[in-house]
């Protein structure tokens, strides 16, 4: 049966042996070897971030804790679906956390786009994987370099469950200012990605 870890097989000392940044390799080891050490490393990095995201999305502490564990369990169970040529690991985990936000916090059904047929299952092209990793890194840098005012509004658009007009009430900024700051931020990101 898929994904049944042996109790007691988890060993914290092993997490240091895998380079911290190559999360795709960790996920691969979870998928192919049911590697609990690789999973523990992913958990140590991503679980607190997922919990942070859920709390900022309005979850109470206990709900966020419960949902975080469910999100990370999904990471294990769906590791075989991860495709490094379509998304980075942080993006992939973000979408799982986002789905949990909709299911558990908003209690909504979650309409998903029709699957694209990618042809017969084959190994993702390594050139695509690398290009995507580079793009993601570029984007992360560009985001970090945004003027603070713009970055805060982008973060709110993602994390807070607020419409623009609610952000306006909260920040005291006119709606037009918020819209143009978000637009400027996105233009900067696009420019950085060219």
């Amino acid at each position, binding site marked *: 049966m898929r*994904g049944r870890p042996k109790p007691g097989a988890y060993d914290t000392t092993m997490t240091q042996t895998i380079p911290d940044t190559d999360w795709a390799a960790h996920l691969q080891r979870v998928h192919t070897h049911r590697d609990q050490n690789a999973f523990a490393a992913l958990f140590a990095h991503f679980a607190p971030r997922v919990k942070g995201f859920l709390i*900022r999305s309005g979850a109470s502490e206990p709900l966020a804790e419960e949902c*975080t564990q469910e999100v990370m369990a999904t990471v294990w169970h769906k590791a075989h679906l991860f495709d490094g040529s379509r998304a*980075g690991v942080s*993006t992939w985990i973000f979408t799982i956390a986002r789905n949990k936000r909709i299911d558990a916090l908003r209690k909504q059904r979650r309409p*998903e*786009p*029709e699957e694209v047929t990618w042809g017969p299952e084959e190994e993702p092209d390594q050139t695509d994987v690398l290009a995507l990793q580079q793009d993601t890194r570029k984007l992360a840098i560009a985001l970090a370099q945004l003027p603070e005012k713009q970055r805060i509004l982008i973060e709110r658009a*993602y994390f807070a469950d607020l419409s623009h007009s609610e952000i306006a009430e909260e920040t005291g900024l006119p709606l037009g200012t918020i819209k143009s700051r978000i637009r400027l931020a996105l233009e900067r990101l696009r420019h950085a990605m060219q």
Partner: protein
Amino acid sequence: MGQINHHLSDQLLIGYAAGALPEAFNLVVATHISLCDECRARLGSFETVGGCLLDSGPAASVASDALVNTLKLIAEGPKEPPKVSRNRAGNVFPTPLHDYAGSDLSAVRWRPMGGGVRQARLATSGAATARLLYIPGGTHIPDHGHRGTEMTLVLQGAFRDETDRFGRGDIEIADQQMQHTPVAEPGAACICLAATDAPLKFNSLIPRIAQPFLRI
């Protein structure tokens, strides 16, 4: 499939990527993306922004037994059954609609709105509402102003308004300032998926009286 000229806004794609939209809007976004490779790619970018924000964002410390509990959860096996979303070629309804409106047009239970226009309200939770509209060729959709945002996605046929033409896959996003009078092109009926986050306010008398009864 023809060329799609009218796409989702950045705001809606961010909202969808982040899981912050009401269900009715998510339905329209997912349906448009099913028809539009360009917005599918843009969504990918916005999800990547989300991934970067997750990665750099503030972390909340998890319980000391969180990993152990998660491994127990894993041992119980996956909870979600895997989703299969296959569709019949040429179906007017992309797969996201199937859970809401049935697997194709013939499953829709229309209600007349007058003038040959029909609608079918789709069940979604939250403040926004979604419905299918059936507008016979050459017919006006009742003139209305908006209190919130309204999204109209064409599934079959086409309509025109003061600004442009909208065919299959095109999405019109109208806000509260907009007054528009869309007309279905002559020929086959125009079928749209519409979502609105505030009740519509019709300008002509009859639809306004009818509104509460029609549950628009």
